[in-house]
């Protein structure tokens, strides 16, 4: 699971509506990928991202210190950094913890498990 995908996942436990995004990554293992850089693609993805969640996640992982709000103009350097953060960091194992209800979603073989038990749905 790349960080771009982490940026799309949220807790869906019944009744959990507060602090359910982003899910906090814990005890993760990372594999670095190599992806072709395309500035236009990164730019076109910006309006599909939740910037605050990305800034929070990359800061807590110690990967990057992004500005809290999305800058109006992005430098080439910033686009390259975003490319690396979003597309080249693959989380192979670990867990995602909801900051609202503490539900744990495991990640194994690079795949997040978002399944809930019947009582949680």
């Amino acid at each position, binding site marked *: 699971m790349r960080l771009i995908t982490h940026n799309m996942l949220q807790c*869906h436990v019944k009744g959990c509506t507060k602090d359910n995004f982003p899910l906090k990554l814990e005890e993760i293992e990372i594999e670095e990928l190599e992806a072709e850089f395309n500035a236009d693609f990164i730019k076109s993805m910006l309006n599909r991202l939740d910037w605050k969640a990305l800034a929070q996640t990359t800061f807590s992982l110690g990967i990057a210190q992004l500005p809290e709000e999305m800058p109006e103009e992005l430098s080439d350097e910033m686009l390259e950094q975003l490319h690396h953060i979003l597309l080249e960091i693959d989380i192979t194992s670990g867990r995602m913890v909801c900051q609202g209800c503490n539900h744990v979603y495991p990640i194994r073989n690079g795949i*997040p498990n978002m*399944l809930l038990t019947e009582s949680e749905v």
Partner: protein
Amino acid sequence: MLPTPDLSHLTSQDYRNVYEPSEDTFLLLDSLEEDQEYIKQLKPKICLEIGSGSGCVITFLGQIVGKNSVYITTDINPEAAKITQKTGKQNNIKIDAINTDLVNGILPRLENSIDIICFNPPYVITESSDINSSLIAASWAGGIKGREVTDRVLPYIPKLLAPGGSFYLLLIQDNKPQEIVEIMESYNLKYQLIKKRKAGIEQQFVLKFTKPL
């Protein structure tokens, strides 16, 4: 003609756990191929396949769209999620597979965000209790009218689609496609029949529903 994704990495053991691409899968591939000019001009940023099974369909979509998109898949079957990821890798398409039921865990975050959604649902008429009775049953057992799983997905589609985005859905005659068209039109989605084909006694259809810009 575009090549069918390379599935040579999959073994008979894998097909005990995931649906082996069949006539229905190929009808969906042919539909995407026929619609490829439309798909390309959409310049999709995020593509989603619900219930990806072997990963054949999303990989084929990836071959059409190219590298500049994110491909996410869901499957309730953890083996399918693993195999989908492998199929992507085998064909040089990066897929982020998620082990989840239908679209659980991506809403409301991905509201108005997905350009292309594909779904080849479990469409066979069965007892309701057969749905999810095993990993492999989840790939085909559709309950009453073969519609129980599909009907759960439909209300999420207008939420997930980006303006101008499209949903490709495979159905058979028993599923009463006309009823589904009515449901989707009530959500203000535009309907188009892409393909129909007879496979044995089964009349199969691929329908496309598009969200207005």
